[in-house]
């Protein structure tokens, strides 16, 4: 079966999620949201999936702070972060490019990253533009650091980075290339990555999503996704936007 790049990424992210209890997905994260819903379908209701901003896919009844309290309690196992820039130390920048007093570019802001990156055990980084502009040696602004000094309370942090070209794992302050997506090459990854990373002797191709996975994504996940991400659901899955009431 042919598939769209977003479907490969969702499949891969669902595998990274693994057998956990609770996955939460923040704002502006349609691919991680699709992956979390896919993981829930595969797990027959487990993990719990919380999609920030979706009343149907959150159990919160204690207001907008409950996501963060829940993470502070150790009750969120997986979260996702992206960044205007991500560097080789796992630092993410959601704020600005250039000098802080006179930035050249401004992003929306750090959201919950400066907290969640520290306390959620498995944070999966994602960035669909894999370029030397986005994957840099050193971010201009650290919304949240990839690693902390040993005395800093930090049960959480990055475990992986997935892009439109490849999948990296993250450990001991460095990325390691784990697989390259179909249609892309290791050389291409090296050319477009601004930071230094480890490269095992053998780097496999990222496996294509199975027919079952694609069916699940298209028939079961996509309609659920459309509530929160109508434009994404339309573009990727052809699900039509419902009119606002």
């Amino acid at each position, binding site marked *: 079966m042919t598939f769209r790049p977003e479907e490969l990424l969702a499949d891969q992210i669902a595998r990274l999620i693994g057998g956990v209890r609770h996955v939460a997905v923040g*704002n502006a994260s349609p691919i991680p949201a699709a992956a979390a819903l896919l993981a829930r379908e595969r797990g027959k209701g487990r993990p719990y999936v919380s999609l920030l901003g979706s009343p149907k896919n959150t159990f919160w009844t204690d207001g907008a702070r409950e996501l963060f309290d829940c993470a502070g309690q150790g009750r969120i196992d997986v979260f996702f972060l992206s960044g205007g820039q991500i560097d080789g130390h796992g630092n993410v920048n959601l704020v600005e490019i250039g000098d802080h007093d006179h930035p050249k570019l401004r992003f929306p802001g750090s959201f919950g990253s400066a907290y969640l990156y520290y306390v959620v055990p498995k944070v999966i980084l994602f960035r669909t533009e894999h370029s030397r502009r986005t994957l840099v040696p050193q971010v201009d602004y650290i919304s949240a650091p990839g690693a902390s000094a040993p005395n800093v309370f930090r049960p959480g942090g990055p475990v992986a980075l997935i892009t439109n070209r490849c999948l990296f794992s993250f450990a001991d302050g460095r990325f390691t290339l784990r697989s390259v997506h179909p249609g892309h090459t290791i050389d291409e990854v090296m050319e477009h990555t601004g930071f230094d990373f480890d490269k095992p002797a053998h780097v496999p191709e990222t496996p294509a999503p199975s027919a079952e996975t694609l069916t699940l994504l298209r028939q079961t996940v996509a309609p659920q996704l459309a509530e929160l991400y109508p434009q994404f659901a339309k573009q990727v899955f052809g699900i039509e936007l419902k009119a606002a009431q």
Partner: protein
Amino acid sequence: MFEIAKSLDEALSVITDGCMLVVPREVSGVPMEATRALIRRGIKNLHLVALPTSSLQADLLIGAGCVETLETSAVSLGEYGPAPRFTAAILNGTIRMKDATCPALHAALQAAEKGVPFMPLRGLIGSDVLKYRDDWKVIDSPFGDNDPIVLLPAIKPDVALFHAAMADRFGNVWIGRTRELSTMAHAAEKTVVTVERMHDGNLLDDPALAAGTLPGFYVDSIALAERGAWPLPLPDQYGADAAHLAEYAKLAATEDGFAQYLGKHVYAKQVA
């Protein structure tokens, strides 16, 4: 003490130039009709606290020149792209930005709710969010051994402003699960609410409704504003107006387009 305002403008009269105003995030009952009224009035120099993020509301207020200081964790139109007037204001240096992270704003409002000068928060250490906030302090936790932790000073807004589904004539407001609205009202000196409709009877008399009710004790003024969150959504009531938000994103990309949007949707008092 509480009163039902004769008009939206009257209800908003406690929100004065230069005051610290706290408003909810894009899906928690954003008072858009009230925001348009404030822009029409020409309010100036707001210290706007968006708990913990904002979308159209902050972008509109900034674009219309109402904001001096913005304290929030992110401003974005979500699927419709970056918030253009926010971005322009930062790049042009026309507003003072206090970048935060979501739980820091929740905690700082809860500090005011509890009458304590600060609240602790994990995370943050080693980030530039902390580096550029000289109002935040790091201490060595007295319960740890070389365990640094950030303390955030309480945020005590002059006014909390939000939109909700319904209120009763005693000033009680039904907020359902969006309990950050309760924290906002507890933390702020005064609270102004717009609502879709008035509820007959007393919300506190029904145990089910009472559980989702902000008591009128905390509410200073209420005004009716049907579809008052439009074009943003109101939880359990209506969704976002996607077409309108797309139109906004397109127009607000330029100053001229933004002026055109203001003329059409704010100054003309036109509502879909």
